[in-house]
């Protein structure tokens, strides 16, 4: 029997998917949720939230993300990754949470998809060379193959002869219709009508979408558009005729036994029914991605933005506040925050400021990297997650520290949540990403060229009254960060409401201890002497471990702890992750117990 899952089928007309709408589709017994994002991308997903199986067609197309109606889980445009779980606002969702997606092509006025389609969408010469005009789609409670066979005897007049369509004569009875082409799931018919003075000719292509074993949608397209002004008459002409054919087929189908409905197989996730997800630490090691520098432009005084597009496939899902490691041509690795708004999965955008004392990071990007270059980047990681359960969010940016806050501000704006962005910069020229700032509008307050004392005064004013259910996010140069933290604490902001991101670990490291590490998977026990890190000892013994900042800030080297008690010296893990004692950064953290068992 023919494998229907290998075919492409049209599942909607392109204009069935207006903005902010979720289209409910059916193919081969499987329910699909289709939605067009604000960037025009059409997402074709299984119509089922991964969490509790609720139809996503009940949810909201928010333009960049789809929100499930049941528990408010959000899934990103393009990647279908989960970006936010409202029940746990402080945790970043695990990156493995990703909805089931299906391939999609828009062609001939339709959106095409399939279970696991092979090859390309059928190429139909008359449509490729013409000016295709999609007709009304008509659902029919009839077996797909029966519908296709019946359509072969569809009789119609060329569009110029349709009554009310200009000079039409309605004489379709003398039109000669012949089957001119056919393929898997489609047929092409051509109608020729000889008039007194001229010959009228027209081609129609029918596609039958197999909804289920006894349900179909008849989709049809003319190879060229009718003359302006007669479109509606042509649409009505065919709609009426296809309806009539449908009615006849349904009347016949009622006399036959109904075939068994198709059973679509649903996606599986590999989780034990009893597993409870832990507080998510989104710092697990992922493979590197190769991206192409699709754009490089000056976005502020001394600040250049880079746009990275995937060489193939999709970019992984990110959340507001996330950063990536960028592997530079000179061998250095640097972390940069993503500036992207929610659901902007088409490319990653970072902002890089040329540091006067650059050791080769920012100067390399500014001077050497060009559009068209290929770079390796890491998966996005988020140690600066944004809560979306605040009544009000205060974002305080100093200089280039604005980048993660721009991502957050766009997410808050899209979700209509109350926020204010306070942007401290040297001068208006130094304020980066004017295009984003313009969209944020009056939510942004600028502070230009303030002295340290004036900055302190401004911070005191805007942090003076901590409100219940409010959160502050601060990113900027060290001294300003310290000042803001101290000011917030003095004003009575609770620790849990004040969020910082560190790109550097300024903790004084204590490397005086000695202990043993047992590598459970490698069946190896090594001793770590004072002055050496676990990572160094591992590398000296030939155990490869990924790392990035190597100062306990980025989370690249987090590993699971199976035994012993870690001595956390990083700034990556938060308090609850530390007390759980089940993971650690091995670049700076050590052991409180004589022996530590790691899952390596």
């Amino acid at each position, binding site marked *: 029997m023919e494998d229907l899952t290998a075919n492409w089928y049209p599942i909607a007309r392109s204009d069935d998917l207006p903005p902010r709408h979720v289209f409910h589709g059916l193919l081969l017994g499987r329910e699909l949720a289709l939605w067009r994002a604000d960037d025009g991308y059409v997402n074709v997903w299984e119509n089922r939230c991964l969490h509790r199986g609720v139809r996503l067609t009940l949810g909201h197309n928010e333009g960049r993300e789809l929100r499930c109606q049941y528990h408010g889980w959000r899934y990103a445009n393009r990647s279908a990754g989960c970006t936010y779980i409202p*029940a746990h606002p402080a945790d970043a969702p695990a990156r493995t949470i990703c909805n*089931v997606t299906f391939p999609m092509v828009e062609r001939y006025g339709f959106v095409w998809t399939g279970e696991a389609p092979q090859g390309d969408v059928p190429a139909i010469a008359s449509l490729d060379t013409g000016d295709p005009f999609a007709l009304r789609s008509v659902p029919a409670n009839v077996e797909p193959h029966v519908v296709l066979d019946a359509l072969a005897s569809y009789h119609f007049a060329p569009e110029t002869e349709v009554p009310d369509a200009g000079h039409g004569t309605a004489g379709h009875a003398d039109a000669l219709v012949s089957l001119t082409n056919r393929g898997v799931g489609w047929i092409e018919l051509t109608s020729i009508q000889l008039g007194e003075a001229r010959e009228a000719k027209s081609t129609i292509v029918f596609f039958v979408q197999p909804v289920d074993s006894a349900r179909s949608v008849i989709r049809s397209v003319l190879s060229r558009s009718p003359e302006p002004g007669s479109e509606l008459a042509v649409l009505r002409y065919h709609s009426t005729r296809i309806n009539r054919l449908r009615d006849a087929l349904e009347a016949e189908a009622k006399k036959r036994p109904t075939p068994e409905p198709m*059973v679509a197989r649903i*996606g599986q*996730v*590999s989780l034990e029914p009893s597993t409870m*997800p832990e507080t998510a630490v989104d710092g697990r090691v992922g493979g590197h991605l190769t991206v192409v520098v699709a754009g490089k432009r000056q976005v502020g005084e001394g600040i250049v933005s880079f746009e990275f597009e995937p060489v193939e496939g999709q970019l992984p899902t990110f959340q507001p506040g996330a950063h990536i490691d960028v592997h530079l041509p000179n061998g250095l690795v640097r972390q940069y925050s993503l500036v992207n708004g929610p659901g902007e999965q*088409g490319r990653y955008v970072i902002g890089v400021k040329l540091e006067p004392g650059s050791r080769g990071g920012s100067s390399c990007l500014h001077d050497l990297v060009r559009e068209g270059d290929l770079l390796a980047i890491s998966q996005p990681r988020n140690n600066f997650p944004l809560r979306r359960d605040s009544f009000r969010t205060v974002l305080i940016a100093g200089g280039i520290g604005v980048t993660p806050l721009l991502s957050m501000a766009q997410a808050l704006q899209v979700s*209509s949540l109350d926020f204010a962005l306070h942007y401290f910069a040297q001068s208006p020229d130094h304020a980066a990403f004017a295009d984003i700032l313009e969209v944020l509008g009056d939510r942004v307050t600028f502070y230009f060229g303030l002295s340290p004392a004036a900055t302190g005064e401004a911070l005191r004013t805007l942090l003076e009254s901590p409100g219940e259910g409010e959160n502050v996010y601060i990113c900027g140069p060290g001294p300003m960060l310290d000042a803001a933290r101290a000011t917030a604490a003095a004003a009575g902001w609770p620790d849990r409401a004040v969020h910082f991101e560190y790109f550097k670990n300024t903790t004084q490291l204590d490397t005086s201890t000695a202990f043993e590490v047992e590598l459970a998977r490698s069946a190896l026990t090594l001793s770590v002497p004072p002055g050496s890190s676990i990572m160094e000892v591992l590398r000296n013994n030939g155990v490869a471990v990924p790392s990035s900042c190597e100062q306990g800030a980025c989370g690249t080297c987090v590993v699971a702890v199976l035994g012993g008690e870690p001595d956390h010296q990083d700034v990556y893990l938060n308090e609850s992750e530390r007390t759980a004692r089940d993971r650690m950064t091995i670049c700076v953290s050590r052991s409180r117990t004589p022996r530590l068992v790691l899952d390596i």
Partner: protein
Amino acid sequence: MIKLYDYELSVNCYKQRLLMSILNVPFESILIDFFPGWEHKGEAFAEINPLGHIPVIDDDGYILRDAHAILVYLAAKYDPSGRWYPTHDAEVLGEVASWMLFAEGTTNTASGARLHDTLGYPFDIDAVRAGAHRLFRVLDEHLWFQEQQGRDWVAGAAHPTIADLALFPDVMLAEQGGISLVDYPALRRWTDRFKRTPGFTVMPGIYPAAPDDSRRTTVAASGSAGRPVSISRRADATWNSAEVVEGPDPIIDEWFPVASAADVTPGSMHPFVLLDERYVLLRRNDGGVLVTQDTCPHRGAQLSFGSFDGERLQCGYHGWQFGADGRCFHQPAHPDRTPPASAGLPAVHVREAFGLWWVCVGSEPRNLPFYDAFEAHPGLTTICAPKRVRSSGPRIVENFLDMAHFPFVHEGYLGRVPETGVADYDVRVVGGELLATNCLFFQPQPGPSGGEGGVVTYTYGVSHPYAARLVKIPSEADGGAREGFEILLVVSPETEGTNRAWMITTAYNPEADLAAFNAFGALIFEQDVDIVESQRPVRLPLAPSELHQRADQMSLAYRRWLIERGIRYGTSSNVD
């Protein structure tokens, strides 16, 4: 001020609330106990509307009945723009009148199917569903052609009219009557557009639309729509596979409620379906109760089609007569013979508790679900008439045990965005009951009496695979422990995918308005129905096929609890 004789769950009453909300007309809602009280059929209401239906409005002494007539009146009188009922444009007005008549059809079919499925109205369900599909096909095609002409609404006006408003709720709630809208994409788009009308308001089962601010500037969106992507993942689990059954499912030894004690009067007969079998409950004149299969042992006819006089039951087919103990004592075709004992009706277990009659069809009945509130607060228990839900029992129970959906499904009542966070709580087993304690959640309106809103403390308990109880203590601002109440939800399975859900509520406050608790419970429940009915697979998956969040601690414990008890009915444990 306008008085609206109103019922929260009535589609036709909602149409009036919706129009008055859009036109910003203040009104007073006079709630009628439509179900289960049938107050609109009572003598007192007959003076207001002898036809015995709602809505009715009383606008300063002017009384008007019939939903669509009231819409005409309200729009003509209170919409100065004249857009909702455009009397100045004869053609559009004609179309409005035409589609209003069409809406009578969708009310009788689509909304009729909903009444059948949710409240058990005795309609020919196949006929009303087929009728709704016929009308929706016409409406979908009409709206599609309207779209092609750049028109958004059913009549040829640039603004929605009362015809759109009259049709909208019938369409939106059709799924509750088992009428899928999947074949009507233009209809679905039109409902999205209508929801964005300024002043739009919801009723249970209708959710607001995502705001359409797509035309608001977006930042440098670079898109390549149409580029094929190749990240499809092969699905490899069955949709809802049949289980391999080994031995009887222990579900048969559980008790399930089948009738409210108040309805079971002497001499009455109550047919019902339980666990795929039909049964009948008979109350004798002496007060005794017999429950037996509703099938005559002779030729399988349904016994409840026959007659029962409080002493004897007579099959309507060949007139076999059975005593109230189930013994067959008369076969009219052979009046002189004594029927054999094998012609009798085997009885199944039945008992009364918490104001309900319960039945167990197995041979070794287990305990009733634990619910000590009934005795601890005598006279303060009320029972909400059962709602039919097209989902599995465990899906319905799990929804009852879940807090994280409150801000999204019960916005304004049991939660609100952005206060969505669920703190960890304690789960343990105490005396065979699975208990979740210290469950805290912010609620704007925790109960029927409204109030200030605050952090509510819940306790959830499961001691029966198809039941769950909750104890709810509002914040001090909303009365604290004095205003607390408990609810026992028990789901009675007709089939694996069709259940009747009963809710028993016990208030702590001796002065509590119990009818208001019932109405509140019904409203909350109605908000959940569409969501729960949309869950796939229908059976609760016990094997890995869904993702979890930390707030699901109780639902996961419940799934484990079902696994330990070997409950297969309504669950799915296939992993391949």
